[in-house]
Structure formats: structure tokens, C-alpha cells
């Protein structure tokens, strides 16, 4: 057992857990923060996306013990205009990938804002086109196929 301190959504939490527990399972099963979803447990779907010190990660591919004293933000800690935009643009159906899409979008906007290029960024370009959003959000799968609404929601907030 390892004792661990983490700041989750601004609250310092103390945890005692085995070193092999993933950050995702620690959040869901140990801290009861079930807003972060498990879709594949393999880093392939993005449903488990959370923000660590403002950067998006797949929490299923992270061990909780790596995040001692780090600032974790899950969907439960987010109040952001993009949530309203997701509702208005119908950027979800079943809602299971939504927490990850929202966390990922917030992280993505910060990455773009910091000048990080993507695979489709043309040299010298700075805007966030639809193609940029789609490329940068491709790690977050939505089987209901709400992609159009998600892109529209992100576009509105990025404006």
C-alpha cells in the first residue's frame, strides 16, 4: 500500500492504494468521482480524459502514484462555457464519452493557445479551423456519432 496526496478539483485528498491502481480507477472507485468514464482501459477511446495541471491525459494509462501533489481536474470540477455549448449544439447522445470530450476540448484549446501545432497545421497558420478541431479531438471517440455537434460547440467557445 502506498499513501498518496493529490489535489482533485481543488481539494486535497489523501489516498491509500496499491501502486498498480490506475488514476482512472482511483478517481472512480476510490474517490467516488464517477464522472470520468472508462471506455476501453487501453488509451484508445479518450472517455477517461482528465486535466493534470491543465494538460489533458488519458487517466486509464496513468498510475495514481505518479500524480502525488499534482492538480487533477475532472468533469466534476469543471465550470466552463463549453458545457452549455455542448448542450446547445447537441454534442452528445448517450453522454458516456461527454466528460472526456469536454475535458479534452478544454485541454486542446489550451494547447492550441500555447501554439502547439497538430498534424494538419499549415506553416504559419494560427486559427482553429474545423479541420484543426477534428484532428486535435480525434483521440476522443463517440460511438453515437455526435462529432458534428461537438465540433460546433468547440468552435463556438473558441471564437
Amino acid at each position, binding site marked *: 500500500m502506498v499513501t498518496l496526496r493529490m489535489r482533485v478539483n481543488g481539494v486535497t485528498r489523501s489516498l491509500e492504494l*496499491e501502486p*498498480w*491502481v490506475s488514476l482512472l*480507477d482511483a478517481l*472512480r*472507485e476510490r474517490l*467516488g*468521482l*464517477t*464522472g*470520468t*468514464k*472508462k*471506455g*476501453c*482501459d*487501453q*488509451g*484508445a*477511446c479518450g*472517455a477517461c480524459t482528465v486535466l493534470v495541471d491543465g494538460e489533458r491525459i488519458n487517466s486509464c494509462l496513468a498510475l495514481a502514484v505518479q500524480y502525488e501533489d499534482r492538480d487533477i481536474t*475532472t*468533469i*466534476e470540477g*469543471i465550470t466552463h462555457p463549453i*458545457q*452549455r455549448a*455542448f*448542450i*446547445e449544439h*447537441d454534442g*452528445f*447522445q*448517450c*453522454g*458516456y*464519452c*461527454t*466528460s472526456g470530450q*469536454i475535458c479534452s476540448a478544454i485541454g486542446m484549446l489550451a494547447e492550441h493557445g500555447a501554439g502547439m501545432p497538430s498534424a494538419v497545421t499549415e506553416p504559419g497558420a494560427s486559427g482553429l479551423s*474545423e479541420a484543426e*478541431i*477534428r*484532428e486535435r*479531438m*480525434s*483521440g*476522443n*471517440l*463517440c*460511438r*453515437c*456519432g*455526435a*462529432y*458534428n*455537434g*461537438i*465540433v460546433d460547440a468547440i468552435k463556438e467557445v473558441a471564437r
Partner: protein
Amino acid sequence: MTTTTETQSPPREKAVGRGIDRVDGPEKTTGTARFAAEFPYPDLAYAALVHATVARGRITGIDVKAAEAVTGVLSVLTHLNAPVLKPAPARSMLDLSTMVSATSVNYLNTDEVHWDGQPVAVVVAESLEAARHAASLVEVTYQEFPAVVDFAAEEANAKPQPSSMLGAGSAKKGDAEAALAVAPVSVDLRFTTPPHNHNAIEPHATTAVWDGDRLTVHEGSQAISWMRKHLAVRFGIPERNVRMTSPYVGGGFGGKGSVWPGTILTALAARATGRAVRMMLTREGVYRTVGGRTPSIQRVALGAGQDGRLTALIQTSVTRTGKVGGNSEPVTEAAHHLYDAENILVQQKLVEMDLLPNTFMRAPGVSIGTFALEAAIDELAGELGVDPIELRMRNEPERNPLDGKRFAHRKLREAYALGAERFGWAERTPEPGSMRDGRWLVGMGVATAYHSSVQFTANVTVRLSADGTVVVRCGFHEMGMGGATVQAQIAADELGVPFEAVRVEYGDSDLPTGPMAGGSAQTASVAASLLSACEKLKGSVLALARRSGDSPLRGQRLAAVEARDGGLYRRDRPDAGESYEAILSRAGRPSVEAAIGSESGLGALAGQVRFMAKFVNDRRRWVKAASGAQFCEVRVDPDTGEVRLSRWLGVFDVGRVINAKTAASQLRGGIVMGIGMALSEETLVDPRNGRVMNPGLGDYHIPVHADIPPIDIHYLDEPDPTMPLGLIGIGEVSITGVAGAIASAVHHATGKRVRDLPITLDKLL
């Protein structure tokens, strides 16, 4: 007390038809929507499965010592020590709940193995990690038996599918083979489609708790009342002792419409250990224990005169089921309805295999059948030198081609006309490879979407309170269709109250029995009962009002009264009427309730008889369906063969649209899944041992953001006269035709016909 109310405010806009935001939006965007694996219990234990590694055989030994030694392990359940379960009820049309029996295998109550992946042990532990680790330590030995697992090799052994009341295995008109042989222009083509998996992002998950002989199950389900009954039968307890809740379903697409091993085994583990038990399947576990779409081998042969009129239409299919379960899928369904051919032959064949049974997946049969049929129509158009839309219009029937039945509704001409105009079809140059955008080869394709509509029965109650709020209760399912939102819209208009005043309760077997969420039937099924319940409720309220001597509604019949502005008003004197509040408070009633359907055993039976009668009657009188025209534009890289979708437009005839926003989303969703089917999705089954080789989202490629262009959705929005409120279900129609349109567009871009899905780049090089 004066009972005449002046209405000053302008008439309220109707809720039906508006693109109202989903009522569950706030929960889903803040992480507070609770899914099946998220119900907390203080003594919760976790379960994990051990899967068989042979396709057919008998367990000769199970060594659980290492697993039991893992810290935190509570129990390792195998066929040697598991509690006894009753067998799964055989499927029968006399009891529709038996439709949820996904397989006939009595898990952990048998040493027989019927597919590679069948659960042979369950580990229960204090933590998820301990359960998973211990499951990996269970050693199982088998006596292996020969198994039938190679679908392609079984084609010759396929047997004709018998016809049933649910659908025809075969049908014919005239002599299509003879007509084909003499047709001036013809194509005779072979298509194949691979198996597919639903891949809802929420893996199947169950939380089960026993309290004596009472069982509570939380599970994402498309059929809670049928599953509840199934669980009661398996565990030998009365149905009323089982409660199933399913407030949110993280995607279903047919995959959560049956009882798969995880459901049973979680309840079994909870019973054996006396603990609340949660089991979320691993993504691999979903592939190993939840069936998907059958693969198919299809023949489509078309014969036509030089004028493009079809003289022969033949579509045949071979699909598979498991030896221990599964469904025939109506692959040739659209060929019954789409083209006015002089001679028609459709025939479906089946092969039974030692594989996990197939199950319903979005537009079973029809999604893959319309790939072949529509791609073949495009090929015939090419042979004739006729525009593919024009060819379809020349063969558009007035009545159902096979039997001359009337269409309840048929607007394909309008759909194509509108679609062609909006999409800019006229700009397409017919010659393959003739359109370019820089280095990209550009292609445009069309196809018809078509899906028959059915309706189940639903029990519904509606309660109106004196404060003007309304509660609708029905145990239906919400997996993203917007069910609670659209039913609230309907109730609001029927009762003349604001949309915000209506709350809808769903997803719980304690509620009045809802329909299964399948066959695109749920919305219409619930709406039909909701309309009746609202009518009944208004009658009760009017009866209360009429008891009062000075009510302006005195002596009025229901037909002469309109529900609006939170009350009932006379149609002949719009200023004469009363608010619900006034009527109920004068009568001293806190609320009035109306119910449709009965929860008693007899009532359920009556409901089933009603369903059957309506089903058979409808089939006899009408051909009912949702339909549409799919338009797409692809770009193909001439060097790599990479196919990118650049534009999509769909025009759908789905009757009246209740919510323009959620309907468009659902239609887009079907198109997205169809794009996956066309370009990337394929479950690879090892032909040597029947094991799924790509059981994960890293190897089974569903569409991602970058794959999906803006999808432009249009509705004809004309009510279907035979459906409640004129609405037709929309869950499935939009996946149909998609792969056909893409295959045709790829041909237009490249000159290459790919008849084997998915259309991957290797097939274009």
C-alpha cells in the same frame, strides 16, 4: 368563484417540432449522470471473467488455487461450485420476453464450451485490481472438439432460412432467373461484409445486490422489463422480486438488448458471496461475450431493358448464427420494397457455427443488405449509361413490388429531388475519375435508405398536479435518443402546459412496463400510449369541472374542449374555460392520474395479444417504413488509396419530426456508424480457432472526429397517417444505404468497384 379565465398572453408555441435541448444535458455535461457501474454500495465487491480459449469442448480441469491465494479474493466461481441456475427460456413468439435469451448456455452450470470466449469462471474480490489479476491466474484445461468457425468455408453448407411472422426468409414474383438470363443489360455480383461489433463506449456493466430473495440490478439495458423476467426465471424467484434500473445507457445500438453472460454472472456472484457485486466487462470482454453483427455473403443480380426498367431483381444472402443462439438477419428486406422489378427473387440462407451468437446491431440485415443492393443499382446504372438517381426514379414503385400492398407513406421521389438540388448533384460529371480537386480524385455517390417500422406496446401513466406540473411514467430506455425530451414535448402539447412543466420518469422496472428500445420502435410505441393517457386524463379533468354548476365547461364534451395555457378551454368560446389549478383545487384533488395498460399477468398477456394483432394487421394492410436519400462526396488519394469523406447530405422521410435537434443528431449518428462500416470496421475472427483477433478499439477502427465531415440533414416532415402523431422511428434508417453510397462514390472517383467491405486502401491500389 368566477371560473372564466381571460387569456391575455399570445398562444404558446407548440413544443412538438422544436429543437429543444435535451432534458438530461446538464447531468451529462457535468458528470452527474449515473451509469450502471456507478451505483455506490458500502460492501461492494468486484467481479472479473475468465474466458474459454477453445471454440468447442469440455472443461477437464480448473485450477483456482493461485487465484484464491490473491489477497482480497473472496471467491472463484466455476461450474464445480457455482449456485444452480435455471436454463435460459427458449425463444418463443408467445412470450416476447424470451427474445432476450442471447444464448442457451447455462454459464458455470455446465462443463461444455460453445465458443471461444465463453466465461468459464468468475473471480470476486475486494478490489477491481485483485479480481482482474486473480482471473488471469485461473488455469483451465479442455478436451477440444472439432468446431465450425470459418464462415467463408461454410457458404456451401448454408440452409434456407424459414419464413416466420417476423419476416420472410424468401419470396418471389415471376421467374427472376429466367428474366435475368434474357435481359438486354444485366449485372450479377457477389458482395461480402465482415462481422461488426457495436462498441458502445460504455462497456457492458452490471451492479447486482441481493436482499434475501429480492434482486436489484443496475445495468445499461435496452429491454429492462424483458431482462427482469429473464433474471427471475434464471434465479427461480417471482418477477416482482427483481428490480432493474437503467437510468442512463452509455450507447446500445442493439448490443444491450439481450441478456449476455455478464448480467447473469454478476447476479450469480452476488448471490454466491452475499455481497453487492459490480462487473464492468473489459473492452476485450465485450468482444468475447456480447455478440455483434453477422458477416454476410450476398449475390445481387439485376436485369433491365435498354430503357432502364428492371425486369429481374435477385438478392440472396448467407449469414451466420451461433449453434447456441442468434438471429437470422433480414439482409434482403429492402429488395422487397425498393424497386418495381417485373420478376423478383429474394432468399436468405443461414449457417450455424461454433461462435458467439450474433445479435441485433443497428438496422440488422438491412444495413449490410442495402450496401449490396444499392451498390449493384449503381453498377447497373453504369452499364446502362443512366444517372443512378434517374435509374431509381424509373423503377420507383407505386405499390409494394412483391405483393402490391399499399405504402403507408412513400416520398422517395421528393427526397431525391430535394437532395439532388441541395447537394449539387447536377455538377457531377458521370465519367469515373473525371472530377479532381488538386491531387485528390473526387467522387459523388447516392443510395436509398430504407427501414421498416414497427410498434410495440407500452404502459404509461400521466399525473397532473394541481400546480399544473405533469409527470409521465414509463419504463422505457434512454441511450441517447432523447426519449425523455420528446415524450415531454408530446405531453406538453397534448395537455396544453409548458414543456418545462413536464417531467418524464423512465429506465426503471418499477415504472409501468415500457417497450424494448429496438427496431426504431420506442418513441412511437410510447407516444401512442402517451397520447391515449393524455386523452383519458383530460376526460377525467373535464368530468371534475363538469360537476361544478358554474364551470364554463359544464355540459361540454371532450371533443369540444381544447387543452392550452395550463387548462381546458372551449373551442367555440376561446375565452371560456378553466385552469387545471382551478378545476383540481375546487374538486379538492391534489392530482389526477390516467393510466394506459395493465401491469397484471393478464394485463401483460393482453398487451402482447394487442401487439401481435396490430403487428399482423399492419403487415397485412400496409408497408410502413422510414426512408431517405443519401448523398456523399469522397476524396481518394491516387497514390495511397486513402478515402476521405468530404461532404454528406441526407434527406429523410421519417414522418413528423418531434424534436428537430435530437432527430438530426440520431440521423447523423447512423450515418457515422455507416461510414465506419463502409471504410474501416471489421471484426476479425481467426478462421482456425474462432477467436476474435482484434478485440479492442485500437484494432477495430470506429470513425473518429477526423473521419467525419459536416453532415447536412433534411427532413420532409410530413406526418405518416398510420403512425401516432405521424411519427416514424428514426434509430436505424440512416445507417442504411450509407455503405452503398460510399462504394459508388469511390467508384466514381477511381473507377474501381470494391464489393467487399470495408473499403480499405489496399483494395484500391
